[in-house]
C-alpha cells in the first residue's frame, strides 16, 4: 500500500479529519500533505514523514517504507509483468501472498491468473509490496489499454 493510501486510512481512523486540518496542526508547507496523499509518484521526505508520524502517533518506519512503494511503481511492475507474460507475486496487507500472471489491471484492481484459484481480482489498495519490482527503465504505464495514465 502506498504512503498516500495508508495516510488516507490513518485519516479515516482519526475520524476523517481533513488534509487542511493536518496542515493547520503541523508545520508542513501548504499543499504538501495533499500532494503526499494524492500523487501517484512518491512525494515527501524523511522530515515531512517524521512530522506525519508524530501527528498520527505511528512509528516513523511504518510510513517511511511505503514511500518506496508508490502506486506508480505498482503500475510499472504490472505493465512489465504483462508485457513479459511473467508471473508477479503480490504481498497483501492481510499477510496473504498471491502469485500469477497479469491478465489486466486498472485504477482499482488487478486481474491475476493464478494456478490455484483461476482469475483472481485483487484490489490494489490491498497490495503492500510486489515482486519483481520493475526498474525505472521499464515501460511506463499508459496507452489505451494500460489503465492508469501518467499523472505526474
Amino acid at each position, binding site marked *: 500500500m502506498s504512503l498516500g493510501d495508508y495516510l488516507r486510512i490513518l485519516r479515516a481512523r482519526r475520524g476523517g479529519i481533513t488534509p487542511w486540518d493536518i496542515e*493547520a496542526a503541523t508545520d508542513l508547507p501548504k499543499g504538501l500533505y495533499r500532494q503526499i496523499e494524492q500523487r501517484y509518484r512518491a512525494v515527501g521526505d524523511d522530515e515531512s514523514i517524521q512530522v506525519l508520524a508524530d501527528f498520527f502517533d505511528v512509528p516513523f518506519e511504518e510510513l517511511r517504507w511505503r514511500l518506496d512503494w508508490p502506486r506508480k511503481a505498482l503500475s510499472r511492475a504490472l505493465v512489465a509483468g504483462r508485457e513479459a507474460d511473467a508471473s508477479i507475486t503480490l504481498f497483501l496487507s*492481510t499477510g*496473504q501472498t498471491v502469485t500469477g500472471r497479469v491478465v489486466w*489491471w*486498472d485504477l482499482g484492481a488487478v486481474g491475476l491468473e493464478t494456478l490455484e*484459484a483461476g482469475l*483472481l*481480482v*485483487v484490489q490494489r489498495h490491498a497490495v503492500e509490496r510486489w515482486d519483481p519490482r520493475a526498474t525505472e527503465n521499464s515501460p511506463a504505464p499508459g496507452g489505451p489499454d494500460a489503465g492508469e495514465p501518467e499523472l505526474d
Partner: protein
Amino acid sequence: MAENLWALREKKKLSVAALANRSGLPIGLIMEYESGLRSIDPRHLGRLARALYVEETDITLQSDPRPGSGPLERQPRREAPGRVPAEGSAAGRPPSADPRPRARPPRPRAEPKPPGPARPSQIVHLENMLKRLGRSKEDLEAELGRPIAELDRVAMSELLKTVQPQIGQSDSATRRRAHLPESVDEHEARYLTAAQEGGDRLHFTLFDGSYLNGQVIGFGPFNITVRQADGTEISVNKLAVVHYRRDPAAGAPKEPSA
C-alpha cells in the same frame, strides 16, 4: 507552558475569523479573550484547544494584551443616516402622523458608457480558434469588413460566440475523451458485468478475514451488491475487499497461501 491565545493562534497561522469558524465561537468573544478583557470561559476552553490542536493546559486563561495593540473597544453602533429615533427616545420628536417611509428621490440615471475596446485575451482566444479552424485572420477581417483590432468588447464577444460552435463541430470527429484516472476502471467493471449477466457466484475475501459468497446483482465504482445463498442482499464497499474470484458451485474455495 501555557501561552496566550493570540500567540497560539498566530503560531498556527490562523486568523481570528478562522479560529472563530473552527471553534464555533463569536469573533468578538475571541477578540475579547485575546485582548485580556475577559478570561476564557472554561466551557469554551476545550473548543479553542481542539481548534488549535493543543491541549487545554497550553492556553492561558487570561491572555496578556498583545504588545503594541491598543485597548479593545466596542465600536458604537452607527445609526443609519436619516434614521428617525424611536418613539419616546431622548430626541423626543413627536411621531409622524404618516407611518409610511418617505420615498427616496429618484437617482439620476447615468448615461450608458460605450463599450471599451476588445480585450487582448479576447483577441488571443479568437486567433487560437482561427488557427484550429485553419482560417486566417485576414479572411475573417475581410468578412467583417473591418480589422479585428477595431472591434469593441461587445462585438468581439458576439464574434467569439459565433466562432466557438464551429470549433465544436470541426473537432467532434477526432476528439477523444480524456483518459482520466477516474474513468479507468473498465476492466473490473467488465468482469463484474460478465459475472452479473452470467449469474456467476463470486467468492469475496474481506479485510477482516471473513468471506462472502453470492451472485452479483449490482455494482458501482465503490461498492458491489451481492445476493447470498439464503436470499439476503448485501452491499460491500470495495475498500473492505481484498480480492474476489468466481466461485464454482462445486468444491470449496482454495485460499491463497498465507
